[in-house]
């Protein structure tokens, strides 16, 4: 709101007081409305993640609005490209919009960390659907999200052990080679995966955007490893798995949620991606939603198979909506509702947040594989 508008509003309200005119009755008759913000990458190389998540937020909201509620909810969509520097520029604007009483997101950990100062200053409650970095809810971390940050996704502290477990499942005498991409996400996940590996054949860090993976492949082969765990993102994982297969490596390739994207089999090619073991702090929406919900989802979004983090985004949105249904229209009220409330997830699970924002008992980690170029859900890892 600019200064001029503020001033004219002040004049109007002063006039209302002087002349004893009351606009209150007409204001209460009109339905109240509040806004929820949604922050994720909608363009850029990780746009797919945000676009998938946005369908879930839209869907949850359409279900809510169909019930003709007393408080209307609007969605304010913010595109941070998954980048910390973009998020840092974007967050103050969202924080200053007082109509926004809650934010679904941010989707990425780095972007979340960069957005936190503005949101903390504005006391805007956040529920992230996919920011998995441990420090965000670690009370000892120098920068954590306390008290505004909550998440409905398992953090890497849970994903790391699950990844280590799933990667070697059914492998006789597994010997693991661990590779990370030097990013905050990749290095973090690798650090939580490493202690859970029984026999580590070796490890390497290959910076993001490397083209040539020859020397890592040579090292994997020299180490005699039969399981390779990659902690990084899909574009690089595609190049790496291709180089591994072309180099004659026939063992297991496993990776975390950064790789669980349709672009991974697309860029790696079906042959190289086949059988890759992937984990994500996510369960597919079509496995937990009712058939009627799936029909409605497809009708609204035009998407038959929901992408990643649709379930968690749907849950995050519904948690906000459950509080709004109770008549909450302020940030402080929302903060209180999230901290003390108990919510139902789409799978029928009970969601309550601990003091630092994680789900009590931990969110589930799903196990996936690639079959003929398609991501297939296997169960809980």
């Amino acid at each position: 709101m600019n200064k001029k508008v503020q001033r004219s509003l002040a004049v109007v309200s002063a006039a209302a007081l002087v002349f004893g005119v009351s606009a209150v009755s007409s204001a209460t008759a009109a339905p109240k409305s509040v806004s929820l913000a949604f922050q994720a990458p909608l363009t850029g190389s990780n746009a797919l993640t945000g676009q998938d998540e946005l369908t879930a937020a839209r869907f949850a909201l359409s279900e809510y609005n169909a019930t003709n509620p007393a408080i209307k909810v609007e969605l304010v969509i913010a595109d941070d490209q998954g980048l910390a520097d973009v998020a840092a520029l974007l967050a103050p604007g969202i924080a200053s919009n007082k109509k926004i009483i809650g934010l679904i997101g941010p989707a990425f950990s780095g972007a979340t960390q960069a957005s936190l100062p503005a949101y903390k200053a504005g006391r805007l409650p956040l529920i992230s659907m996919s920011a998995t970095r441990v420090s965000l809810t670690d009370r000892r971390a120098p920068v954590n999200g306390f008290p505004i940050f909550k998440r409905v996704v398992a953090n890497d502290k849970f994903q790391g052990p699950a990844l280590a477990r799933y990667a070697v499942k059914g492998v006789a005498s597994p010997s693991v080679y661990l590779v990370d991409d030097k990013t905050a996400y990749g290095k973090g996940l690798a650090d939580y995966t490493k202690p859970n590996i029984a026999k580590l054949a070796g490890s390497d860090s290959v910076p993001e955007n490397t083209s040539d993976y020859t020397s890592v492949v040579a090292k994997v082969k020299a180490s005699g490893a039969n399981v390779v765990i990659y902690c990084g993102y899909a574009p690089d994982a595609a190049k790496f798995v291709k180089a591994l297969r072309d180099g004659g490596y026939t063992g297991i390739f496993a990776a975390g949620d950064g790789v669980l994207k349709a672009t991974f089999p697309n860029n790696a090619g079906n042959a190289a991606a086949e059988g890759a073991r992937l984990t994500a702090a996510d369960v597919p929406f079509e496995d937990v939603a009712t058939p009627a919900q799936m029909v409605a989802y497809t009708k609204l979004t035009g998407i038959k198979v929901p992408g990643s983090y649709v379930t968690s985004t749907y849950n995050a949105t519904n948690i906000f909506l459950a509080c709004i249904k109770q008549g909450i229209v302020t940030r402080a009220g929302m903060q209180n509702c999230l901290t003390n409330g108990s919510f139902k997830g789409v799978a029928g699970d009970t969601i309550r947040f601990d003091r630092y924002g994680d789900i009590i008992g931990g969110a589930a980690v799903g196990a996936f594989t690639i079959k003929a170029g398609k991501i297939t859900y296997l169960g809980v890892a």
Partner: protein
Amino acid sequence: MFEVLIDQFWSLTIAGIALGFIYVLISLGYTMVYGVLRMINFANSEIFMWGTFGTVITNRDIFHYTQTSEPAKGWKLALVLISALLMSMFVAALTAVFVEFVAYRRLRMKGTNRLATLISAIGISIALAELMRLLTDSRPVGSPRVLEKMILTEVWGANIRLDTVVTIIAAAIIYILLERFIQLSRMGKAIRAVSQNEDSAKLMGVNLNRVITVTFLVGGLATGAAGFFYITVFEYTKFNIGFTMGLAAFTAAVLGGIGNIRGAFLGGLSLGLLEVYASAVLGTQWKAVTVFIVLVLVLLFKPNGLFGEAVQQTRA
């Protein structure tokens, strides 16, 4: 520490040479322009990136290969590969000539200082990268496999793979052709004349503008060929790959002695090998550190690069 290097020495060496040849071809784009204009062609990295898309479009959109289709064989294979090579060279050469017209020619005619040209080259480089970002939605683009990466034979425990062999042989042929063109053809002599002394060359009746355009064209052809080999080996491209590859190739050019074609050759090969050896011995996170320490050391003792001394005599 060295067991990986010893165990996998020959695979690493062959991969390093293939990568080195890609660097050689890109660094020709830098070194030729530098030789003639005494200016760094900052847009060369994006010329390379556009060149990679020439191959992707040929494979994917002209010959309709997909991620699931079988690799080509026999005559079809030769046809697709040669078309893709020519397409990449064409796209890159066209981009290079465009860069020369837009970023260099007019400023040169106006006699502006070198900084203006430098900035206009950087500007057009950013514009080219951002345009490709918009065209591809910032997403990585995978190229379907056309050349089957079969293992031809095993030498001292190293797999000799078809794609690396093709890259090494074809890139060497292209390099030799270019080198001969510069040494023997009339135009090549004109290019060398301009690079040695612009004013004298002009007095001898050399058409300066034509020489400069041809220099960009030839540099673009080499860089485009590099784009083709890059896709053949790595099957992947993105709007921002020009930066890392361009920086590496520029390093190779400086390492060998910028402005010197043979320097680019040896600089590129040394860099390719150095990168894979350093990654194997110290870990990939040390690759960039090692490469640039070596570069600084070389420049400390040989400020003109490994072959820079010969520039005045055999600059080509």
